[in-house]
């Protein structure tokens, strides 16, 4: 066998080179490219005035006003739609003013007939649902059409309760049409009268004062019938309204983008009212507003922005980080980040933040955070003394101050009864003399002993329903600890919101944690929570049913603000405090941090159509 001359150099095989070199090259390329692109991105932003707003949710459920119920639905749809009335932007306390109307509705003497005049030259957005794609003018029929949609069950309306029992013939219409094969919108309703395209009347069954507030609620926003019929079910994701912004796109789970409506009717930024003749402020906080430059854009045509990006956040950390990176124009301060931005004790924004030009704005909410009992529960419900004492004892054991401190940086307002600060009937004093505000353990123990359960012995476990999410679990644990101090044992049921609703609806939850945000700035909205006929599955989750209370509620419902009404409010409040179907209460103050470049932002959660007033540099 021949031998061959030996070879020393070794060339790599194709396979080898393929693996060894491509791997490396690909890796370098991927990472390199990524960094390159990543660095370029920061400069690539669109032109025009853009506001970056945020919401702490994965997104609204719907943009159809009648289907909406949450604050998020409200905020997202009110960009596009408009209501007949709205609240004056800068004025406090909030005051109703006409939006789509030329003036506030004129109300007849008996308070039952409302007359309206619509603004002219208000056009719907240009949209393919209209002939030629040009938005048509808003007419009176649209208003009634929109109200009737709230009665149509096939729309899954969330706000029927707002109109129930109030407009003449509307309840009968509701029954009749929902039982019929098809919902007939053309069928007239006795209480809804169209005079001409711009004039109409509503006849109420009783002089409900809250009716005006309802007309400022987003559920009653005016929608064009063409769009509803054109888009069908898709209408919930294709809003067409009269608002200052048009819906551009919805990236599910990320953001909704709105752009300026070029055909927006002539609406102007509020004029500077100037000081009163006596040198006093026209409204509290006027001088501050002035100082913050809120009147610099006075008289300018709205909206001031070209685009609004409403971004969604489920986790609070990214939202906060984005604000810090100036990728969001403002943020509400998560309780957990409060100390980072504020000196906790004084609630003053820290130097580093104010140096950046970040402005802080505390905004008290019409907020009611409470624990509730099911008054029909065998062990903890009932109106007899024993059960009342048990509830009062439990109420006395709960230490709201500690909760406030641990979870809310001591920034909440603790008050007695269901009426939040800023509304008639809110107790002025630190505590009502007869309140059962915790923590007063000696008294709690006494009451418990009086009820026959000294030291909690023999008392069944209190099953406590609270929804998962946020820091509810921790709060529940804290309350459990509080109650353990007087010997009341607690069984925490940490459930998702659906299960909680279900438990409340079926009156299965003996004890629960809930919160109520006022739909409109009137304590009537809070007091209806205890009205007997509204028992579960309606809003009265307590199933509180006291004839005396019910009678008073029926009275205040049709009263306009007056000292007499306030007195009644107070009586009702005190009844609730004494019977203790509810343990409470706490009202939050929302802290806003606002970047310097965001102009005209006066945070509020009473209404949400303020993005049209915003401006950026």
């Amino acid at each position, binding site marked *: *066998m*021949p*031998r*061959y*001359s*030996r*070879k*020393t150099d*070794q*060339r790599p*095989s194709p396979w080898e080179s393929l693996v060894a070199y491509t791997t490396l090259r690909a890796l370098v390329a991927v990472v390199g490219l990524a960094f390159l692109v990543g660095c370029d991105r920061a400069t690539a932003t669109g032109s025009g005035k853009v506001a970056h707003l945020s919401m702490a949710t994965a997104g609204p459920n719907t943009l159809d006003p009648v289907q909406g119920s949450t604050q998020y639905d409200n905020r997202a749809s009110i960009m596009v739609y408009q209501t007949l009335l709205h609240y004056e932007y800068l004025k406090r306390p909030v005051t109703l003013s006409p939006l789509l109307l030329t003036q506030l509705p004129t109300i007849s003497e008996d308070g039952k007939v409302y007359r309206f005049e619509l603004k002219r030259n208000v056009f719907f957005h240009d949209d393919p649902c209209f002939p030629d794609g040009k938005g048509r003018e808003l007419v009176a029929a649209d208003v009634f059409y929109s109200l009737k949609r709230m009665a149509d069950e096939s729309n899954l309306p969330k706000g029927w309760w707002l109109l129930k029992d109030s407009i003449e013939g509307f309840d009968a219409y509701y029954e009749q049409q929902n039982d019929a094969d098809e919902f007939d919108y053309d069928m007239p309703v006795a209480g809804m009268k169209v005079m001409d395209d711009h004039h109409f009347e509503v006849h109420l069954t009783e002089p409900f004062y809250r009716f005006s507030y309802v007309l400022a609620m987003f559920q009653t926003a005016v929608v064009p019938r063409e769009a509803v019929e054109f888009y069908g079910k898709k209408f919930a994701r294709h809003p067409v309204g009269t608002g200052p912004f048009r819906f551009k796109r919805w990236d599910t789970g990320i953001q909704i983008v709105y752009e300026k409506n070029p055909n927006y009717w002539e609406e102007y930024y509020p004029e500077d009212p100037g000081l009163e003749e006596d040198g006093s402020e026209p409204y509290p906080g006027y001088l501050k507003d002035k100082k913050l430059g809120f009147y610099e854009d006075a008289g300018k045509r709205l909206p001031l922005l070209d685009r609004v990006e409403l971004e969604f956040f489920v986790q609070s950390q990214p939202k906060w980080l984005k604000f810090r990176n100036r990728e969001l124009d403002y943020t509400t301060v998560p309780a957990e980040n409060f100390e980072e931005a504020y000196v906790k004790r004084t609630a003053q924004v820290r130097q580093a933040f104010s140096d950046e030009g970040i402005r802080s704005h505390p905004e008290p909410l019409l907020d009611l955070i409470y624990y509730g009992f099911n008054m029909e529960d065998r062990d903890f419900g009932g109106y007899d003394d024993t059960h009342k004492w048990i509830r009062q004892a439990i109420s006395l054991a709960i230490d709201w101050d500690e909760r406030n401190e641990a979870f809310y940086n001591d920034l909440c307002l603790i008050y007695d009864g269901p009426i939040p600060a800023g509304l008639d009937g809110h107790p002025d004093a630190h505590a009502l003399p007869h309140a059962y505000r915790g923590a007063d353990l000696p008294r709690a123990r006494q009451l418990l002993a009086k009820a026959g359960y000294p030291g909690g012995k023999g008392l069944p476990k209190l099953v406590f329903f609270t929804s998962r999410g946020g820091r509810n679990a921790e709060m529940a644990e804290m309350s459990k600890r509080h109650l353990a101090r007087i010997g009341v044992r607690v069984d925490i049921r940490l459930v998702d919101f659906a299960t909680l609703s279900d438990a409340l609806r079926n009156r299965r939850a003996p004890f629960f944690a809930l919160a109520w945000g006022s739909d409109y700035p009137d304590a009537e909205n809070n007091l209806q929570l205890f009205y007997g006929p509204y028992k579960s599955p309606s809003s009265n989750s307590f199933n509180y049913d006291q004839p005396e209370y019910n009678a008073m509620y029926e009275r205040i419902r049709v009263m306009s603000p007056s000292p007499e009404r306030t007195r009644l409010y107070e009586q009702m409040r005190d009844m609730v405090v004494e019977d203790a179907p509810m343990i409470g209460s706490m009202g939050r103050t929302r802290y806003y941090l606002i970047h310097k470049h965001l102009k005209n932002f006066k945070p509020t959660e009473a209404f949400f159509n303020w993005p049209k007033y915003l401006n950026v540099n």
Partner: protein
Amino acid sequence: MPSVAPLLEVKDLTVGFRTDRGDVTAIEDVSFQVRPGEILGIVGESGCGKSVTSRSIMRLLPEQNSFIDHRSEILFNGVNLAHTDESVMRSIRGNRIAMIFQEPMTALNPVFTIGWQLDEALKYHTPMNKLQRREHAIEMLRSVDIPHPRQRYCEYPHQLSGGMRQRVVIALALCCGPELLLADEPTTALDVTIQAQILSLMDELRKKSDTAVVLITHDLGVIAQICDRVVVMYAGQIVETADVESLFARPQHPYTKALLESIPLPGPAHHQTRLPTIDGLVPSLFELPSGCRFQDRCPYQDEQCVREPPSLSQESNLRKVRCFFPINES
């Protein structure tokens, strides 16, 4: 034997392993020579260190847990392979020294064709171009009696039978024309009929190309069939070395003798008779006795055997035995 210069000279090869029970010496002071064209048989029972010997020559033992004693020498054409560079080893492996393994079923890479695997070896060691390599590889396949070599060239190992695969392994070993072939139990896994094929093939190749062969086996029949000289190993040591005729005719070490006797012999005379056996067990490498390693099993065991280890006698260059009392019968 003509006194040609040895091709391979192993001197005092001592190899150890690091194990979880501590270091252990697998082979100790193994010395032998191989001349060109010669077949040296290394015989012994399992665990005696014969495979370690061949793998040390090729330096194929895992470096992390084995070590070659620094005094050991493996002189191949004068180069000491025991402590040479890995790069030098690479140019020698497969080129001047080639190896055949026991398991033809697993020794070939299953995902490459026969041709690719032959080609690879040629590519490393010869300056031939692609076409030449292919032709040469096919020629090699033919020379190991593989039918339809052109077709086989493109096939994968699993498409071949065991005997055929072993022939491919041999072709792989021989394709660069090595001077020394290490065959580590090349026929153990094969049936007798295939063993016969492989043995005659090796014999033929040796005659044709004057390649020296170190044949490792436990089968004395195979040794008797083709070897020139024999090294008998026991428990990591060489106990006897001799040319094949004299070893079989006059074994001097008691172990060699017993080993030879324990093979069943053909013919009616031996039918169903009791076989002579070696009692006891091979000592564990971890618990080697202090004296002669065979002492426990040896019928001739003496005090001296227990006391001191016997060294390999130097009766002649061709005949060595590690025993105080070598058997001397004719």
